């Protein structure tokens, strides 16, 4: 039970790596924004309270991967021509409407392209990774302890993959969505979130999986350290025109790319134009990572509304997966 970690979804065994890459990292967006000049501070829309207005429905869909792919090592940005070529290549590679000759690959593609909403563009800065620090665009190495923990967890998950619900990923269990965070990452579909502001609260409502974070801006301290939550405990403040959100108190069972309960996540939201936000997050967890790391994602305004994503309520898949495993066992026993 202790190993209820969703590592499997995020850093799955090698064999599934390509598929995952296709599904999650090949995101894109209808992005126009960051190509234009940033808004001047005085032109920023303001709420009635005078705070920078971040409200609206936003999408972080992009095809730019979190980490810089090995074949782009040493190349932090594309030229415009390279970016266009990359977008084309990704679009072809990720088109699941192509039926693969290999049945296993075919079943992994799951269903038609029209179910997806990955975006088709690289981020406007033409960066080759969302990670901006360290400069190599890669997640820093895990500490030896964290490495061991991650390996143990992975091994446990592999061994118990269909023994019970605990062997499935948190996403499959409808407990937490890998890309809904915090931090929020682009995913293959439903990359939408809504921001609402009152005078001392900001709400971030993520469509996946109907998670709403209500973030106090009133200077109140974090909750007691023994209160642990899947989404942690967030406190916000304004740094000029930037909303800064600090999140701690993550559940022991939550792990973002190898993080542990000591994760201190800092998110920064800056309105850069009427239709764009710059979203930046820094992961600081000295017991898990050898150094902090930071990613940036351009977020664009999108059409609402946010629809209900009642994950658990319709989760026939969990029953099917476990029932399938039991049926296989019965057959093997004969």
């Amino acid at each position, binding site marked *: 039970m202790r190993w209820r970690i969703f590592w499997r979804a995020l850093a799955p065994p090698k064999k599934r790596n390509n598929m995952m890459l296709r599904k999650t990292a090949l995101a894109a967006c209808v992005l126009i924004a960051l190509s234009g000049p940033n808004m001047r501070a005085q032109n920023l829309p303001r709420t009635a309270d005078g705070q920078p207005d971040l409200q609206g429905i936003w999408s972080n869909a992009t095809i730019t991967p979190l980490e810089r792919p090995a074949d782009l090592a040493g190349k932090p940005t594309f030229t415009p021509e390279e970016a266009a070529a990359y977008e084309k290549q990704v679009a072809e590679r990720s088109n699941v409407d192509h039926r693969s000759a290999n049945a296993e690959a075919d079943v992994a593609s799951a269903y038609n392209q029209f179910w997806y909403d990955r975006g088709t563009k690289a981020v406007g800065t033409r960066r080759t990774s969302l990670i901006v620090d360290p400069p190599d665009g890669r997640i820093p190495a895990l500490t030896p302890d964290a490495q061991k923990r991650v390996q143990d967890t992975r091994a446990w998950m592999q061994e118990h993959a269909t023994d019970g619900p605990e062997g499935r990923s948190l996403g499959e269990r409808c407990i937490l969505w890998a890309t809904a965070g915090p931090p929020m990452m682009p995913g293959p579909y439903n990359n939408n979130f809504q921001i609402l502001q009152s005078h001392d609260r900001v709400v971030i409502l993520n469509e996946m999986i109907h998670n709403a974070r209500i973030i106090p801006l009133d200077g109140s301290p974090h*909750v*007691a350290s*023994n*209160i*642990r*939550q899947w989404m942690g405990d967030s406190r916000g403040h304004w740094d000029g025109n930037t909303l800064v959100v600090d999140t701690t108190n993550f*559940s022991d069972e939550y792990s973002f790319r190898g993080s542990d309960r000591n994760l201190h996540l800092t998110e920064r939201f800056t309105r850069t134009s009427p239709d764009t936000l710059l979203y930046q997050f820094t992961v600081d967890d000295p017991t898990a990572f050898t150094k902090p790391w930071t990613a940036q994602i351009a977020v664009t305004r999108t059409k609402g509304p946010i629809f209900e994503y009642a994950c658990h309520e319709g989760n026939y898949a969990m029953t099917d997966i476990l029932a399938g495993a039991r049926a296989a066992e019965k057959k093997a026993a004969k």
Partner: protein
Amino acid sequence: MPKQFRAFLLNAIVAILCVGAIPIFAQNQPYKAPRAADGKPNLNGIWQAMNTANWDLEGHSAQAGQVVALGATGAEPPGIGVVEGGEIPYLPAAAQKKKENYANRLKLDPEVKCYLPGVPRAAYMPYPFQIVQTGKVILISYEYDGAVRTIYMDNPGPAPVDSWMGWSAGHWDGDTLVVDVTGFNDQSWFDRAGDFHSDMLHVVERYTPVSANVLNYEATIEDPQVFSRPWKISMPLYKHLEKNAQLLEFKCVEFVEELMYGHLRKQPSK
């Protein structure tokens, strides 16, 4: 300076000072509760805490319940905690016992067996209670298990015997009802998390009206056998405003008979 003008100036200064002072004065003035017939603050009414202190006085995350069949209805709701300073200052041996209590809470929590809740737990059980106030006694009737306490406003002397709900002596400190409670047995718990006490428990409760429908409730807890120092919990209590609000019966004894005596039930002959 003409006399009249001087008088005018003086009046003007006084007026300005007063006008300026009013809002400040109003802000600092503590809430003055409405009075009962005897001139004391009126605490009469049906009250209830709105928190999860009964699950755990300390801050706590949500977690699965102890009974699989109950699913989400039996799960434990989270809470930010009501203990001042965050942690209950247990002595080392007592901290160990609390851990054991917690591990065996389904078996050991007196609430599971429908036992009387004790004090202060009665105040933050997830059930309403009613204060009925008179000059000589203040009675508190709790919906949970029909528990009841009489608070003697004339000093009742020492408790003759130990009891679940203790022996309550009250007095007024300004608008605050202060209740000194002693004479406890060592059977009740403070919450479902196994927080406990010995028969040396001494509780001082403070009920302070802070607005028309809110009492601030504080309890200072002292027990030299269990805690390294006195500690305090505090929370608001809210008034029930429903039309015709009343306590109903929650006589839970009948609901626990199978749990407590089922193993002694006659087995059907085979």
